[in-house]
């Protein structure tokens, strides 16, 4: 199944773990990040200190430049749109206008000559806010009489997706057993190591503004800002320089960036803002925060026959641009059945608005939560049927392709069962069970947990259109050119920020045109240089931008062959491109590609009008989407006295299609798993009853350190995707999709002697101890009433 073949002519760069072309600058301190730029003016945002209320006055110190909503007359609200699912558009003003809706909402922008001065002045700005009662919990927001977050969204539900397959009721009513899970995934912050920031600079001679900012979507940032500020896109250049991680947080439009561009135009100067960590944690977009009630109906053979889900997604105070808040609940609804063959499905998915920081997509988008829920369901069902959790998966995983899901999604070739078996074999389950038994006898609680999942990646515009999105960020464009010096430049609409795309795309091009990656520069993150594109998110760039790259590179290849055939006076079929030259097969006649490129510009008369001048070709790609898959298994050691969990071992069997660069692919999986372990055990944004945030430092909000992440063992299967012209599937999110389920299933396995069920993440020591205490109480009660304890 594994094949690292080449699709070029001669060299074989695809499939090789070459070192990254990105690294030399980053490793020597020569990377250029947004906060590295000097500016004339600096901004500090004054933020709401309360979660809900009427903003009556902003008191600015005398002589200070303090911008409020009153100054931003004519600036439109950020209002992303969905045309389906009873979506109620709610607009977000760039600065709070009359109402504040979450702690940390930007209310005013202080402008000063230095960051320190701006901060000092911001400390003196006083806000008069008539506080009202906030609502931060989504289920409470659904109750009758709950505070209303937006007048235009009575009841606080701003999105409602419903689905029910035609035979659902019949199958459900005829089922043998119903198993239920009440899952809760608490709120997270994606926590890129570089907080957000922006630098806007006005060019007095052209009237253009250059916005340099930490974004995953430079073109869409340009479109959105020009929409709300109402000026031509040609007058705004957006640059995403080196971006220090995004994970989704940097794909949504920050209202702060709108203010920066407005200020640069007003001041006709340069102005910068660097978010601090506290701002990032309270206002830099949040994620997850879902309640899912999932019920599975099984037949007598423990085959899942119907699935019923109720999804409540806390989307925060506003709807994020461009995806809208529908991104979480609708993804959960569409992909809930996951890797299992189940054709009857009913789902209600709601997006509920609350007085909390706005939600944005975060690596995995809903799938960590639905996988956690579904995999809990499978483990509980296994127990209900008294069979092994591995066996129930064997009975239910999809094994015929293409497979059409109950939601109408087409799954391409994948290896759900094979990866499960691979992961099972890697851990030697019987040996583990023996060790587990021995440990239990000594009061140590070890557990093993499995998670199988599908990861929809590289999906084009139809997937977004199905959600009714006004903006369908699906396709990508790549322009590959060989310049007269013989160097290759690929300008791409994607905007990588750590994924190593400059390297992997160079590998694809190198094979296609017979050169080496060092000869290829991939240009991205600059709207003046790159073609319009959607950026990097949703495990899409290698599939979609990679596909567009291959299309463009093949056109360049065809043209090089044409030129070579003219110059070498040989038939095109006899020309081979390899090692930087065009050769006539079976002879020693050859011309360097650099020479062909030079001729393409400087000697066009030779081609007698048969070949167009220059050597620049464009590729567009808008694929249907492809499913990666994996099985994760975790072995944990739970301290029943303290509730502490140590992840001892983590095994992954992964299939992401053809792997372009194994080193980079493994790195993506590693990083995802670490975030998944954080999701499972550590990371939680906590609001108090008044809507204040209790986790505003990295001492309170806890991304994992090297100590919490065990060595990760990776096993690969490569099933080339028929839905991706490079045969590669995306894999950026899989790590964090499977890990929470595997870890929490392992915890539940470890604690099975106590009869506790952990269905809430993060499974912190407090939650584990609370579950154990309640089990102890229950068992004491049972003993007192004469029932046998666990």
């Amino acid at each position, binding site marked *: 199944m594994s094949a690292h073949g080449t699709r070029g002519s001669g060299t074989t760069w695809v499939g090789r773990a070459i070192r990254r072309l990105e690294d030399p600058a980053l490793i020597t301190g020569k990377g250029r990040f947004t906060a590295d730029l000097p500016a004339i003016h600096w901004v500090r945002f004054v933020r709401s200190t309360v979660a809900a209320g009427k903003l009556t006055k902003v008191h600015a110190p005398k002589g200070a430049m303090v911008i409020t909503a009153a100054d931003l007359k004519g600036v439109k609200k950020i209002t992303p749109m969905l045309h389906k699912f009873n979506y109620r558009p709610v607009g977000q003003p760039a600065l709070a206008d009359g109402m504040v809706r979450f702690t940390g909402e930007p209310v005013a922008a202080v402008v000063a000559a230095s960051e320190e001065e701006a901060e000092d002045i911001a400390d003196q700005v006083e806000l008069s806010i008539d506080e009202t009662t906030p609502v931060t919990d989504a289920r409470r927001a659904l109750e009758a009489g709950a505070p209303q977050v937006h007048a235009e969204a009575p009841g606080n539900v701003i999105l409602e997706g419903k689905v029910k397959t035609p035979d659902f009721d019949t199958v459900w009513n005829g089922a043998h057993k119903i198993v239920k899970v009440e899952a809760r995934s608490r709120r997270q912050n994606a926590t890129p190591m570089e907080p957000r920031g922006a630098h806007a600079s006005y060019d007095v001679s052209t009237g253009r503004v250059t916005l340099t900012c930490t974004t995953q979507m430079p073109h869409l940032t340009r479109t959105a800002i020009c929409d709300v500020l109402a000026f031509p896109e040609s007058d705004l250049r957006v640059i995403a320089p080196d971006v220090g991680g995004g994970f989704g947080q940097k794909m949504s439009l920050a209202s702060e960036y709108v203010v920066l561009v407005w200020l640069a135009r007003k001041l006709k100067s340069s102005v910068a803002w660097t978010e601090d960590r506290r701002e990032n944690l309270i206002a830099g977009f949040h994620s997850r925060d879902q309640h899912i009630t999932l019920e599975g109906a099984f037949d007598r053979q423990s085959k899942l026959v119907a699935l019923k889900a109720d999804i409540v997604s806390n989307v925060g105070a506003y709807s994020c641009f461009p995806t809208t808040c529908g991104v979480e609940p609708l993804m959960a609804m569409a992909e809930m059945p996951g890797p299992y063959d189940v054709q009857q499905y009913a789902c209600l998915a709601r997006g509920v608005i609350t007085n909390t920081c706005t939600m944005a997509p975060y690596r995995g988008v809903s799938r960590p939560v639905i996988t956690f829920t579904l995999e809990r369901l499978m483990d509980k069902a296994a127990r209900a049927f008294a069979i092994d959790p591995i066996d129930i998966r064997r009975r239910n995983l999809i094994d015929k392709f293409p497979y059409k899901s109950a939601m109408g999604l087409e799954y391409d070739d994948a290896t759900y069962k094979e990866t499960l078996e691979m992961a099972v074999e890697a851990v030697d389950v019987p040996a583990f069970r023996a060790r587990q038994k021995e440990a239990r006898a000594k009061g140590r609680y070890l557990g093993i947990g499995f998670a199988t999942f599908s990861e929809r990646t590289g999906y084009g515009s139809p997937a977004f259109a199905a959600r009714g999105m006004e903006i369908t960020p699906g396709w990508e464009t790549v322009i590959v050119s060989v310049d007269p010096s013989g160097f290759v430049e690929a300008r791409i609409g994607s905007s990588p920020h750590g994924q190593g795309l400059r390297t992997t795309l160079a590998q694809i091009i190198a094979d296609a045109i017979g050169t080496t990656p060092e000869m290829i520069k991939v240009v991205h993150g600059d709207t003046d240089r790159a073609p319009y594109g959607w950026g990097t998110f949703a495990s899409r760039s290698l599939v979609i931008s990679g596909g567009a790259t291959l299309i463009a590179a093949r056109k360049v290849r065809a043209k090089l062959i044409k030129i070579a055939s003219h110059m070498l006076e040989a038939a095109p079929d006899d020309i081979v491109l390899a090692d930087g030259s065009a050769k006539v097969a079976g002879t020693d006649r050859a011309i360097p590609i650099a020479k062909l490129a030079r001729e393409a510009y400087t000697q066009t008369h030779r081609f007698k009008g048969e070949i167009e001048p220059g050597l620049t070709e464009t590729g567009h790609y808008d694929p249907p989407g492809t499913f990666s898959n994996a099985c994760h298994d975790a072995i944990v050691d739970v301290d029943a006295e303290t509730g502490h969990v140590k992840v001892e071992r983590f095994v992954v069997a992964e299939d992401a299609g053809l792997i372009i660069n194994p080193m980079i692919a493994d790195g993506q999986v590693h990083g995802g798993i670490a975030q998944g372990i954080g999701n499972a055990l550590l990371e939680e944004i906590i609001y108090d009853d008044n809507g204040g945030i209790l986790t505003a430092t990295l001492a309170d909000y806890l991304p994992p*350190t090297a100590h919490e992440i065990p060595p990760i063992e990776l096993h690969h299967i490569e099933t080339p995707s028929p839905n991706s012209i490079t045969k590669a599937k995306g894999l950026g999110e899989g790590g964090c999709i499977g890990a929470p389920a595997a870890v929490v299933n392992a915890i539940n396995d470890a604690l099975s002697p106590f009869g506790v069920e952990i269905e809430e993440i993060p499974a912190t020591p407090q939650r584990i101890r609370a579950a154990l205490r309640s089990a102890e109480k229950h068992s004491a009660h049972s003993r007192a009433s004469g029932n046998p304890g666990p």
Partner: protein
Amino acid sequence: MDITLTINGRDHAIAVEPRRTLADAIREDCGQTGTHIGCEHGICGACTIIVDGEPIRSCLMFAVQANGKKIRTVEGLANGDKLHPMQQAFMDHHGLQCGFCTPGFLMLAIGVLEREPNISDDGLLDVLSSNLCRCTGYQNIIKAVRAAAKDMRKE
């Protein structure tokens, strides 16, 4: 206050407010932006540099406290085109993705290995747990630092 910061062997005579952090002074007053700021409260370690041989968080030190001390930052690691073994190992083992935390990890690891070249694997893991990386899951950082430790012992 007038102070002199000696960064990678070069003196920078600057005037700073007493409250200015060393991280800000290095980046803004001395123009050495390779040192990054991730949290400004001493947790993430992105701003780790070496002062008089000790890896420290430059966001937790005032610039005036570093007056006259020997400061090393990521910009001073390579010798011309020759990378420091730690930099080479990070490239060889894919110890970085977005690269934002990388300078801090390099300085942390180098600072500790120079002081304690034979540090145990467990000891190294303890040290590396003092900085945060959000991209790599630490797997390849650990691999890179272990490989570099070997190379540094040889040199």
